[in-house]
């Protein structure tokens, strides 16, 4: 059992939990993920590691209540425990060689982009963060991102924070202003990552995206998380989750994300809530 030592609410749907998992905390690196199962009979869902504290022996997860499992997880409180918590899985991001980086976070993706920005900042890179949300009520981690960024832009789809537009609009403006990024990191919904990659391709800026498909074991065993990258089949769990955004077949990934839509709605009827492993929304 893995104890929840702290619980925070970032917006009405997004929660943050600090979990006691000393062995994982010791090894975790930005870009890696864990898989958890809340109770016996529950599904295994992957969540990216949002933060870790090696001294305290804790791992932080941030999740959006979109499905049955995440909703159930959201009902747990400090002092409660999660049945299974396994990691750190996937490959760590390699961020050492970059000097000027644009970090893009879309919605909950901001929670995954944040540790990358933090790591880049600590390595001395100039970090420009652009984070986007549907409206100002949904904005998360603005202060945290500010602390580790040289410039921060918070975008809203409806303009309710006074800054209307998509993250791609802002990124385009900044590239055209002459910012020579040697890397763009984009983490968010598939459609957002697809458009960021499409934007940076003609400028030839290396673009890393973080893929989070449905998976079971997270160790390369089921192959459910496979995706096409540069014409080759890769497993997000062991070959990723970071991939070159210019090579990922996003259309296929979006299609594969629909695989259990029918069952999700069935589960919703049965339980008045939805099943889901997706965390970017």
């Amino acid at each position, binding site marked *: 059992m893995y104890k929840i030592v702290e619980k925070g609410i970032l917006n009405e749907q997004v929660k943050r939990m600090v979990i006691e998992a000393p*062995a*994982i905390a010791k*090894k975790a690196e930005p870009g890696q993920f864990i898989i958890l*199962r809340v109770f016996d*009979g*529950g*599904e*295994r869902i992957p969540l990216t590691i949002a933060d870790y504290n090696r001294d305290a022996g804790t791992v932080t997860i941030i999740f959006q209540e979109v499905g*049955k*499992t995440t909703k159930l997880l959201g009902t747990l409180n400090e002092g409660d425990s999660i*049945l*299974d*918590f*396994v*990691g*750190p*899985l996937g490959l760590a991001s390699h961020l050492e060689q970059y000097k000027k980086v644009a970090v893009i976070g879309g919605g909950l993706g901001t929670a995954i982009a944040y540790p990358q920005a933090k790591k880049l900042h600590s390595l001395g890179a100039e970090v420009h963060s652009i984070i986007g949300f549907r409206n100002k009520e949904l904005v998360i981690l603005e202060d945290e991102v500010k602390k580790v960024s040289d410039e921060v832009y918070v975008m809203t789809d409806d303009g309710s924070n006074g800054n209307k537009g998509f993250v791609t609009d802002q990124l385009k403006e900044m590239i055209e202003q002459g910012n020579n990024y040697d890397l763009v990191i984009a983490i968010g919904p598939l459609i957002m990552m697809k458009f960021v990659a499409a934007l940076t391709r003609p400028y030839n800026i290396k673009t890393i995206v973080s893929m989070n498909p449905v998976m*079971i*074991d*997270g*160790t*390369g*065993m*089921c*192959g*459910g998380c*496979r*995706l*096409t990258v540069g014409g080759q*089949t890769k497993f997000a769990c*062991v070959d990723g989750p970071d991939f070159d955004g210019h090579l990922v077949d996003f259309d*296929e990934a979006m*299609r*594969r994300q*629909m*695989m*259990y839509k*029918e*069952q*999700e709605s*069935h*589960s919703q009827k*049965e*339980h008045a809530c939805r*099943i889901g492993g997706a965390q970017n929304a």
Partner: protein
Amino acid sequence: MPNMSLEKVKMPEQESNVRNRNFQEVALGYTEQMAKEEAERCLQCKHKPCVMGCPVNVQIPEFIKLVAEGKFEEAYQKVKETNALPAICGRVCPQETQCEQLCVRAKKGESVGIGRLERFVADWHMQNVKDQIEKVPSNGQKVAVIGAGPAGLTCAGDLAKKGYDATIFEAFHTPGGVLMYGIPEFRLPKEIVKTEISELEQMGVNIQTNMVIGKIYAIEELKREGFEAFFIGSGAGLPRFMNIPGENLNGVYSANEFLTRINLMKAYTFPNTDTPVRVGKRVAVVGGGNVAMDAARSAKRMGAQEVYIVYRRSEQELPARLEEVHHAKEEGIIFELLTNPLSIKGTEDGWVKEMRCAKMELGEPDASGRRRPVLKEGSEFDIAVDTVIIAIGQSPNPLIKSTTEGLETHDWGGIMTEESTGKTSIEGVYAGGDVVTGAATVILAMGAGREAANAIDEYLRGKNV
């Protein structure tokens, strides 16, 4: 006077048209009377050819004699001397190519039903005897076992019996490996696996789940934690795909994923459990091994109307156990033999629509000694399916190899070991089971776990002299 019937006492089974709609066990097991009758077919040969065919040396004539005498508990204890998991082996061992193949009775008629009798004594014991398992006092020496499948469980059990402090690190949330995620409930009830594993725990084996070695700890780090020897039994978990167009369409599964969803995650009770599986109405399973049979029979039970086994060689070359093939046929699985998939075609929105196949004919023998299937020109045809399950084999998972410096492996991923000890290229590190041989059987993995436990014992004794 032995029972000279040429046939085994028939195994009671669920009716095929009933069982292909449920996940309860197919074979129901012998009654005491049936077991005695079958045991009396054993000739009690002095040279015991059957034992030579058993990877863990079960004392077969001895235990069968005890069954014939009605001493079922004593018979169980006799099996248990050399086999830590008899209820499992009695169900899933390919006895027809091991002990039973060498049975003298098989020269004329059927062999003695050794597997059925092994299963009987194990089940009888579970139903009638409350175990008082005693923990063997620890000698304080720590051994780490990676993977709680058949190889790791056997190795750890044997080490615990010898007094070692054995800890198994398992990546999944439940121990058992392929016994839990791969082999379906209707062939091997999970309660039985759990019972046999809990006996190992009572003996003193420590099982830590949710531990992906290579990620959370490297072997080098475990050494610093005081582990003096290691056994790698991490299995062959990496699914192979065919690399044909359309393999990433929605509705294409690896057999690993399909079976794990159903067995380990219990998708057959969805929505009572949370993990779904999408089966569809018409299912093609590609491959001819036991895993392919398990996937096909599971798909049928999940409600598929038509389920095909698509295999590129002929019936004779099917690698699955004959019993599994029979069961599959009885349950209405359709065999498309000498058939090879060329591509999978999808609907506009990316779901499997049909599989393009070609007919094959058998040519000259290949490296495996089997006749090589050759494509028949102009024989292409489509099978309309909405689900495709790829069951053409698994390779060892590279996670441990990639984080263990100096661990030598074959180019196909298997760990190189010394025969009969499981010794690897690193001192104190042993390996066995599918991670060494590639996908094979439960009992061979158990045999390798046993050999490695003996070798580890010898190594640690030598070290402490």
